[in-house]
């Protein structure tokens, strides 16, 4: 049995405590220095390195966040911070993996608010500071599986989405949750071209949204989210392909019908509404049987529901997961 599906026991130490915070940043820099030494000439980066926060988020200092450890965290080693913040799919800032880190510095994340609508007793705009209770923050170390057959392990910081939704008092008609990303080509240069139908939209069934594993994250690796990772507020649904975990959220609607979602609208044959990680259902472009964990050489087997089957499989009992992929 692989260690990767091991779930940390209650009271497990924070990832930060286990690794020691400085180790988050130092691994890559060590490799860099070693590589530079090997080649005799450095890239010149190591010398003028301003520290990880400066490197990962140009123009914005990422504040440290206090968070409680969670029993739902994986015990796996988190992906190198540099990799997690320089290899991103966030088409609002460009389609190359390096684009989001390069072109997201214009994004204004403060002030930020989220508009609630649809089947809720308490609709309207809520400021981020009122939406997320900082004293309730948890660290959730989750596997992240991209549909492009690569994966990472990310120590997110956030709160369960369920609590946030309940505070808006959903009505009995609320069967689905629809999310929307900011639409502003001034701040998001990738939106100047019609790569997808902007704004980006995602959705969950209400039971998926209320599941304890589903969180709204405002941070990772002990700090606030860098812009390229979906600042200041993003969804994290660890048993689904990464594109379901919508970034920079400005609107959340509770709705009666299954809402349209961006990739599904763009290519319905390739991306389903559910998008649960499933090694049995191939994407036309990628076999989903295996994945490359960033930082590793050999591909590893992909697990059903990204290894979260024990917690989530029952929600899909009796459903044809090939049809509803």
């Amino acid at each position, binding site marked *: 049995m692989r260690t990767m599906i091991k779930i940390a026991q209650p009271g497990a130490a924070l990832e930060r405590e286990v690794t020691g915070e400085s180790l988050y940043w130092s691994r890559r820099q060590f490799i860099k220095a070693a*590589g530079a030494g090997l080649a005799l000439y450095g890239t010149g980066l190591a010398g003028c390195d301003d520290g990880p926060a400066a490197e990962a988020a140009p123009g914005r200092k990422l504040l440290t966040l206090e968070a409680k450890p969670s029993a739902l965290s994986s015990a796996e080693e988190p992906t190198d911070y540099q*990799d997690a913040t320089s290899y991103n799919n966030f088409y609002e800032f460009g389609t190359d*993996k390096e684009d989001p880190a390069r072109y997201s510095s214009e994004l204004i994340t403060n002030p930020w608010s989220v508009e609630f609508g649809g089947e809720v007793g308490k609709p309207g705009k809520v400021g981020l500071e009122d939406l997320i209770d900082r004293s309730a923050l948890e660290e959730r170390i989750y596997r992240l599986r991209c549909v492009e057959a690569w994966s990472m392990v990310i120590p997110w910081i956030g709160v369960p989405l369920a609590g946030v939704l309940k505070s808006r008092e959903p009505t009995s008609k609320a069967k689905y949750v629809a999310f929307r990303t900011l639409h502003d080509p001034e701040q998001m240069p990738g939106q100047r071209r019609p790569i997808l139908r902007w704004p980006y939209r995602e959705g969950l069934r209400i039971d998926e949204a209320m599941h304890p594993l589903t969180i709204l994250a405002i941070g990772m690796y002990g700090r606030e989210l860098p812009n390229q990772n979906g600042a200041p507020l993003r969804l994290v649904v660890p048993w689904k392909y990464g594109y379901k975990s919508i970034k920079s959220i400005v609107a959340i609607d509770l709705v009666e019908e299954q809402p349209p979602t961006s990739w599904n609208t763009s290519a319905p044959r390739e991306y389903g509404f559910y998008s649960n990680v499933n090694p049995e259902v*191939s994407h036309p*472009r990628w076999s989903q049987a*295996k994945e*490359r964990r*960033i930082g590793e050489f050999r591909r590893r087997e992909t697990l059903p529901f990204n290894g979260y089957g024990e917690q989530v499989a029952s929600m899909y009992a009796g459903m044809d997961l090939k049809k509803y992929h």
Partner: protein
Amino acid sequence: MDTRQAAAAAIGLTPAAWLVVRFFTDDLGANPIEEITHETGTWALRLLLVSLAVTPLRRVLGSRLSLRYRRTLGLLAFAYATLHFSTWMVLDHFFDWQAIVEDIFERPYVTAGFTAFLCLLPLALTSTRASVRRLGKRWVRLHKLVYVAAAAAVVHYWWLVKSDVTEPFYYGAALALLLAARLPFGRFR
């Protein structure tokens, strides 16, 4: 091979050398295997298109532009295609034959890429002067496969991208231009 061809070959191998430098300075990013795959593939396509520019350019420049460049460029394209193919087979799939075969037959973009590579193979094998002499007219006919290879390579790229086809479009447009430049315009007058 004269000095000018050697210089062309040296320039052509620079991107590969640069990849080696980037590897040792840990500059290939979070997913080095993907980066190597993309870079070798892109250079194979670029060099293939440049090799296809030799014939139309000779219409303008005449014999000042030696046909030998065409062979050098073609072989360079093949070298990058081989690096691209082996990166995919060895580094990416690590000889997982089942996955490799499944990819070739079930993922259209891989089918197209593999087709392009298969088309280039006999061309590289018959690139010697002796082969040209021995095959005569059949050599010319055989080497028309380069058009299939180039078209398949563009399709490979086109089908590979998720939604932004800007770059594959540019390569496709370049290929279309190079093919149009071969049309016997004079005859239509």
